[in-house]
């Protein structure tokens, strides 16, 4: 019989009265599951270790969330006293002519990023996994754009996007006979230009994730496919993709959530222009909060933020339910 058996008798050996909930006492007389026992087992030191974490989360995560919810029900510019206005902020946002424009632009950005930006890291990772030599170099090159600070990257690409005929990109496309493009200077091309830069800046991280996922694919499956006469693309379609589909599903939802919150590109490239062609939901939130030099409308900014959170939460739930059967596990 171990010391533990003495300390914590098995439930079926207990007297019925004890099983009913009377305190079980240790040989030292401390009742099991009581504060005293909790203290004895080092509960205070555990709490002390947890306190900084609780403080940081409380101060910088939970409190701001609670404050956000309260602010969404107030009319406040954080300067004059706040007044309670119920759901009128939500109503004002929905009736703002810029709201549908922002939603449409955000959906378009996310859609373009999904069509063009989602397959590229996957294709790159599959190709890199087939390469025998210098795979490390290719991985580093793929990840390099991620290392560049986003603001620096955007300012760099702003120079590249110079719409003059001798702008960098216009010069390059001129070599293959394409006429100069307006890039971010025209309403029809501004948003795709932002998607292009965003894809370049963020693809590297996803490439690394896929490369790691590909190492988990059983090589024998490829050998079996080769025996059956499968070429490269059939191996990819029938072996690689099914084996990493869990990772793909996760990266897809992360990309959708990320692109729905796009802010840096529209803010730094075009500030929502030209003519609101690149105005996104996050930029609209920013404009509500900081667009008025006399004091922002933080109530509306909070309301739109909550609407975005709610939408992404519902979307994620539906997505996870719908794709549950598709994942490997």
């Amino acid at each position, binding site marked *: 019989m171990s010391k533990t058996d003495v300390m914590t008798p098995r439930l079926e050996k207990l007297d019925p009265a004890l099983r009913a909930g009377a305190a079980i006492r240790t040989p030292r007389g401390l009742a099991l599951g009581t504060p005293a026992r909790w203290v004895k087992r080092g509960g205070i030191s555990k709490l002390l270790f947890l306190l900084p974490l609780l403080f940081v989360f409380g101060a910088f995560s939970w409190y701001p969330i609670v404050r956000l919810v309260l602010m969404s029900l107030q009319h406040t510019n954080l300067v004059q006293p706040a007044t309670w206005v119920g759901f009128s902020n939500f109503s004002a946002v929905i009736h703002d002519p810029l709201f549908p424009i922002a939603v449409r632009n955000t959906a378009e950005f996310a859609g373009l990023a999904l069509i063009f930006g989602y397959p590229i890291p996957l294709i790159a990772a599959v190709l890199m996994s087939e390469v025998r030599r210098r795979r490390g170099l290719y991985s580093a090159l793929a990840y390099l754009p991620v290392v560049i600070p986003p603001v620096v990257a955007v300012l760099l690409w702003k120079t590249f996007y110079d*719409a003059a005929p001798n702008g960098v990109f216009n010069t390059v496309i001129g070599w293959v006979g394409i006429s100069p493009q307006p890039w971010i*200077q025209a*309403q029809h091309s501004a948003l795709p230009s932002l998607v292009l830069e965003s894809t370049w800046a963020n693809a590297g991280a996803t490439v690394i994730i896929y490369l790691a996922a590909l190492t988990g694919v059983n090589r024998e499956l490829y050998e079996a496919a080769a025996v059956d006469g499968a070429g490269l693309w059939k191996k990819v379609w029938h072996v690689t993709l099914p084996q990493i589909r869990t990772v793909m599903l996760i990266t897809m939802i992360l990309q959708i959530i990320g692109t729905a919150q796009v802010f840096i590109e529209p803010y730094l490239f075009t500030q929502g*222009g*030209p*003519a609101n062609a690149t105005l996104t939901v996050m930029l609209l939130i920013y404009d509500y909060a900081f667009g008025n*030099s*006399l*004091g922002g409308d933080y109530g509306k900014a909070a309301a739109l933020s909550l609407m975005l959170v709610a939408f992404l939460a519902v979307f994620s739930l539906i997505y996870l339910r719908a794709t549950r059967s598709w994942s490997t596990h």
Partner: protein
Amino acid sequence: MTFRERGRSMRLNIKEKTFIRRGAAVAAVALLAVGAGTASNAAASKAPTVTINVAALIPGSTKAAVAEFNKQIAEFEQQNPTIKVNGVQYDWTGPTFAAELAAGTLPDVFTVPFTDGRSLGEAGQLANLTSYVKQLPYYKEFNPAVIAEGIDGKGQIIAIPTAAYAQALQYNRQLFSQAGLNPNDPPKTWAQVEADAKQITQKTGKTGFSEMGANDNTAGWILTTLDYAFGGRMETGVGTKAKANFDNPQAVQALQMLKTMRWTDNDMGSNFGLSWGTSNQAFAAGQIGMFISGSDVYTNMVQADNINPSIYGLAPIPLANNKNAGVLGGGTLAAVKPTATPAQIAAAMKWITFFYMSPLVNKQQAIRNAQTLVANKQPVGVPELPVFNEKQYQVAQSWIAPFINVPLKQLAPFNSGIFKEKVIPEPEAATQAVYGDLDSVVEDVLTDPGANITSLLQQANSVGQTSITSANSGS
């Protein structure tokens, strides 16, 4: 050493003991003397030191500009030993100002444009300076229209006008010469502006005429300037009776002119997202032939863009043949945080007088200020509109005449022409919001060849009316 020898060496002899006693006595006396001196010094300088943070230069200013500013602080602190001044980098932009206002992190003395002074004052965001300002010896010399920008609806003085400007036509004399135009004869009509812009682009390949198109209120600001120059007004009525008037015929005319220059003449370059700072930058880099901005932007071009002075030219904005045509004028107000203590407000008033006002009204200070600016290679004599009156302005200019280092001859068209033009204040109600509502109209015209100007202005008008109504209702 034996124990006895050690003991002997450890025991001090009588001489040594006497020396130590005497030395201790001397030290004690010295300490007492120092202590007494310190106490008397403390008593003499018991007047508490007040510390104020003041708006300094914009981020990115040159080292020379920063050195000059610090010299001015040193001079002020020498004249006012009980005041400590800390310069804080400061650049008024709508978003950053709103954030700093909410966070309470503005410096104690800061500047705001004329457009925001009254509203901020009425919202209790600026300290009440009435009693302090009325004691100023030059208080009665203020131009009534200019000081009114710093008076709120209750008649309280909540800010002091420190500078006023008129919109002007900035032009590159070098590009004019290269294009075969006379740099001493800038355009006087909008038809000439269009023709000169076309010629500059054809002959030099550079932008003939640039229009600010950034989505940060500057596009709407310049469009309003053009509207005034053609004789229109973006608002009618004042106060609670203010109404948006964006779709006035003169605004249509101005936008039509821009559309022609952009899509027919193709002389507006390829970058339509320029703002105030980036326009100055591009102009200083020799990429723009003409653009519209404030008459005082040369200072920024020297401080932040390293402009070659020989290329700079300034002319009055051409005015249409319309009795209502005029030049949009604006300015800067110096204000104090409402949370400043009375001692800080008093110190802030001294700083405002020293830094902003005394060069305009005190000959010695004007000369000292000019000398410091020249020593640090900063511009002296940049054209501004009088905060007091034209006569005082000319007198102040005469004090610093020996130190003026801006190319005065190149600015002659503006200096000689501006006082003949009618200066019109910016739209009174929800000014910055109105500018913001007009931004997308300009951007649409510059980026869409099929833009329907009338429809755009009508749509913007309803948005603008909402902004004005919201501002008037205090929401």
